[in-house]
């Protein structure tokens, strides 16, 4: 067990479910990029430098209707702002490492890589930087590859939707959720149930007035507040 989170190679292996999910969604992102008139090079540049699954779909949608540049950038900022919360919650773990190494970890942080990382950290085992890089770099390359293939060959290949591949990311979130909730449920059943209930309710009501991505952030912050206020179980 102790060697699980030590090497780059183990990190690559831990990333494989993410690769599965990214192949499906990245492929779709490439197809959409192509359909709004982006070149394969432009799709490659977006995935390489913006590297933001959901936001790339939204950017394509906004480019298609010729939105103002400032509106596109601001929307992207809001959609991806949740990564600030994610980075904040793991940054202290890497504070002893050099600034450059830490920036490298933050640069390649995504919802999925974050989920796998916090699961590893929760096991209370030493998580090496090399492992984190194995995880992050694999996800990054999978995303770029999938979007480029989608942009280049999308027209000739079957729809990933028909193969159910679009469900891969939701399935992965479910798996990550279960791994993350296991310990809190065991230790604090009542409190954890309250937190989850409030997060879901806030999200549901939030999505009535806010975008889904902003609702995720608001629901997360409200859930954390519940965690602070509700006393621990007896």
């Amino acid at each position, binding site marked *: 067990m102790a060697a699980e989170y030590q090497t780059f190679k183990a990190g690559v292996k831990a990333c494989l479910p993410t690769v*599965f999910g990214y192949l499906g969604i990245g492929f779709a992102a490439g197809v959409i990029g192509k359909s709004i008139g982006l070149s394969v090079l432009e799709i490659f540049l977006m995935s390489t430098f913006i590297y933001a699954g959901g936001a790339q779909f939204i950017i394509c949608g906004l480019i298609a209707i010729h939105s103002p540049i400032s509106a596109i950038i601001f929307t992207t900022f809001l959609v991806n702002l949740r*990564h*600030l919360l994610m980075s904040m919650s793991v940054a202290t773990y*890497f504070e002893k490492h050099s600034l450059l190494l830490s920036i490298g970890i933050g640069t390649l942080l995504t919802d999925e890589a*974050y989920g796998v990382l916090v699961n590893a950290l929760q096991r209370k085992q030493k998580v090496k930087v090399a492992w984190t890089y194995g995880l992050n770099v694999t996800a990054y390359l999978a995303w770029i590859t999938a979007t480029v293939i989608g942009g280049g060959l999308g027209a000739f290949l079957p729809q990933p939707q028909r193969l*159910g591949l679009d469900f891969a990311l939701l399935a992965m979130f*479910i798996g990550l959720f*279960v791994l993350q909730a296991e310990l809190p449920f065991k230790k604090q059943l009542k409190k954890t149930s309250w937190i989850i209930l409030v997060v879901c309710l806030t999200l549901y009501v939030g999505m009535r007035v806010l975008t889904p991505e902003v609702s995720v952030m608001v629901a*997360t912050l409200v859930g954390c507040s519940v*965690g602070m206020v509700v006393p621990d179980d007896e």
Partner: protein
Amino acid sequence: MSSYFLKILVGCSLVTWVPRVLPFIVTKKLRFAPWLIKFLSYIPLCILTALVFQSMLEAQAHGFPKLKTLEAIASVPTLAVAIKTKDLMKTVVVGVVTMAILRLIMA
């Protein structure tokens, strides 16, 4: 490549990059207060809960979001496998296969 696209590329790269790395830079310079560390410790559970639920909801132009029926149905066996195996790969494979079968039946 148009300057319209280039400006979007540069702007969006910056606004997605800064939130990801800023906390890593800040923690080198200062320590978070204990209450903030406690607050942040709830983020993984809360954000994963929110991401799961959000992926099952479809925002509407007016009114409350709607539950995506297929996704919600496919989530049941996926959740069961996740709880039973605690294995991400198996969870993903069962989810994808369930979804493919559901789409086949519905088509």
